[in-house]
């Protein structure tokens, strides 16, 4: 009779029935949604607060430049003394007073203008005001050079380069980033899962050691069976938790948005466009709407089925590698405080993968660093997934890289599990010792 399913079942139930697991599972989505709702709510409040700025303009310039915007409105003072303007600004509780004195030339006006506030003004307000002055000054200088304002407007028009692949498909700016973010999302998920559930595996091994049940169990089953049963059982519990989170968080988000009457599109601009692809896109001068549609089309072009398949492959292999290392650490020590020295070297490649992914893969998915880290087995589950949304083969990840990456991962997986099982087998029966790396190495030979 195979004992592995019995062990998996126990490990799964032990984890799922644990009080902290239940609390975490049901509290986390509420906390997460609460955070999102709170942020959205605060953003809304923040946007609604309007600043009123007094403008005391004695010069001949800027008569039409201070127009009320969404966040700022301007109140004009006329025919008063500066002191009176200051007093009434303070009295009315306005944000500040902009004083533009009378001078012959614009340069001098700008030089002698002051912005009075009660407290240090926010940088965004200053930028707004400075922008007005800068625009006027530039226009004035251009006029001196003989450029009319309409010519200037023509000149100031923004330009974006058009890009196209050799096959004639339109390339969009930032698509690489979007793809990498999607891949990064998967990679990040793997990392979080490894750190959280690897830790659970480790603690569970330590518990068996400290409660001394290990010797009873180990006389009935092989240590390897127990280790694998534990890893699989715990990961199934983790998948259960993730599934509950995703389902309940989605439900709660909808409920929360309905209650607080928040439009989800304010949070993710433009991501909502799904239907109605424009059939024939004009490569020249895309309107904003067309651009969004093009991005959406690009999102649909991401090979989701392939991506999810490889996510599963990399997830399983990566998780097994790391959690067997965690199991070996748990076996090597007597209590959790001793684990620190061993944990850091595990976290390191994971962090490296995430950072390399975000800084290197985003800007150049096929650069040498991105390729190297997507082949190296301890980082490939995360980095390769960031590259994969670009597709496989032409224009994407070359097939040989993918094959080599997975082969390396499988070889490493076998090696590490063998190694971890050795340490585990010896470690679970060693009490009262805080092992060094040197000793761990010796255990392999036992």
């Amino acid at each position, binding site marked *: *009779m195979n*004992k592995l399913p*019995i*062990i998996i079942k*126990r490990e799964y139930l*032990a984890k799922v029935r*644990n009080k902290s697991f239940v609390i975490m599972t049901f509290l986390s989505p509420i906390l997460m949604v609460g955070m999102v709702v709170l942020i959205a709510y605060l953003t809304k409040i923040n946007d609604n607060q309007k600043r009123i700025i007094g403008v005391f303009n004695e010069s001949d310039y800027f008569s039409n430049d201070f127009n009320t915007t969404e966040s700022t409105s301007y109140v004009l003072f006329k025919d008063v003394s500066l002191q009176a303007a200051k007093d009434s600004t303070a009295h009315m509780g306005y944000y500040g007073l902009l004083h533009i004195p009378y001078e012959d030339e614009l340069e001098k006006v700008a030089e002698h203008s002051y912005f009075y506030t009660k407290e240090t003004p926010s940088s965004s307000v200053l930028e707004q005001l400075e922008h007005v002055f800068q625009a006027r000054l530039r226009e004035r200088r251009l006029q001196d050079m003989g450029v009319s304002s309409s010519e200037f407007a023509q000149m100031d028009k923004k330009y974006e380069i058009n890009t196209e692949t050799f096959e004639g498909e339109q390339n969009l700016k930032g698509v690489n980033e979007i793809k990498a973010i999607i891949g990064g999302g998967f990679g990040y998920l793997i990392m979080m899962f490894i750190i959280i559930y690897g830790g659970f595996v480790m603690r569970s091994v330590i*518990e*068996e050691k400290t*409660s*001394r*049940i290990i*010797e*009873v*169990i*180990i*006389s*009935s*089953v*092989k240590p390897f069976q127990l280790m694998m049963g534990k890893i699989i059982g715990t990961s199934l519990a983790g998948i259960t938790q993730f599934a509950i989170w995703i389902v309940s968080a989605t439900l709660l988000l909808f409920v929360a948005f309905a209650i607080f009457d928040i439009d989800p599109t304010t949070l993710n601009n433009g991501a909502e466009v799904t239907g109605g692809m424009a059939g024939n896109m004009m490569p020249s001068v895309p309107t904003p709407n067309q651009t969004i549609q093009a991005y959406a089309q690009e999102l649909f072009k991401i090979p989701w089925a392939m991506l999810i398949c490889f996510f599963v492959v990399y997830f399983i292999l990566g998780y097994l590698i790391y959690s067997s290392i965690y199991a070996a650490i748990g076996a090597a020590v007597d209590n959790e405080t001793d684990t620190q020295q061993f944990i850091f070297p595990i976290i390191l490649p994971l962090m490296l993968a995430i950072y390399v992914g975000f800084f290197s893969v985003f800007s150049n998915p096929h650069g040498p660093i991105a390729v190297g880290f997507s082949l190296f087995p301890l980082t490939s589950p995360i980095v390769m997934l960031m590259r994969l949304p670009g597709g496989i083969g032409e224009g994407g990840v070359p097939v040989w890289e993918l094959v080599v990456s997975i082969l390396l991962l499988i070889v490493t997986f076998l090696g590490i599990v063998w190694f971890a099982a050795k340490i585990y087998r010896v470690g679970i*029966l060693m*009490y009262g010792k805080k092992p060094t790396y040197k000793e761990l190495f*010796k255990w392999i*030979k*036992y």
Partner: protein
Amino acid sequence: MDNILVTKEVTKLYGKHLALNKVSLEIPKNSIYGLLGPNGAGKTTLIRIINQITYPDKGEVYFDGEPLKPKHISMIGYLPEERGLYKGMKVGEQALYLAQLKGLSKVEAKKRLMYWFERLDIGDWWNKKVQELSKGMAQKIQFIVTILHEPKLLIFDEPFSGFDPINANIIKDEILNLKEKGTSIIFSTHRMESVEELCEYIALIHQSEKILDGKLSDIKKAYKNNIFRVGLQAENVDLLLTEISDKFNISKVGIDPLENQLDFTIQIPANDSGEILAFFAKRSNINQFTEIIPSANEIFIQTIQDKDANE
């Protein structure tokens, strides 16, 4: 085949440390076999090899005449010295899990557990969590789990630790009962009085080597030195004492003049007790004449001290 378990020159190394050095044992069927030795002698390593938790570097182990294989795991029950249970798990569930790991089906395991829980009077513990139990209570459950799959060979490492005298007696009776039913038992302990009480055979392991083994009664015979404890009653004990000590080598003398009683220990030549008895009988009333047989404890200490002195 009369032996349930035979080890032939079993050697185990941990790095450079020699944990077992050519240990050969023969454990007869349907007996209680005491595995004795000081702490760190190598007993636990030997037991782990029998349980296939670890493997010998050299030598062979035979179970019931066959080389030891993984299939034999379900025929062995092991109660380790360092034993515990999952703290947060319910007693019944936990016992079921451990029984299933030994290869019992869930239904069969439950049936047998019910029987044993009733028998040891712990039927109402089924839904308790282990952390609510006392140490002795947890030991009872571990004992049940060890024997539940009716193994041919049982290995008990310090089975009585943690039990109060009453429960220790219950467990002792159960062990004897299992032996009656034909189970072979290896019994590892430091408590010599229980060795005396239970074991037919013993092996003594010291510094990774077996230094003594065999039937306990034979070993005792080999260790006795024809020393007798004698009690005599005479009218003049002082005179008697002078007379005897002139003729024989005696020690541990005790005199009680009120009762006219003389006690002493005497070393006599082999097969020569008749003459001496006649000598005593002529002069006094003999009310005690017993051969001193060494206890397991004395044998244990003496053998190890001799061994250490020789090195």
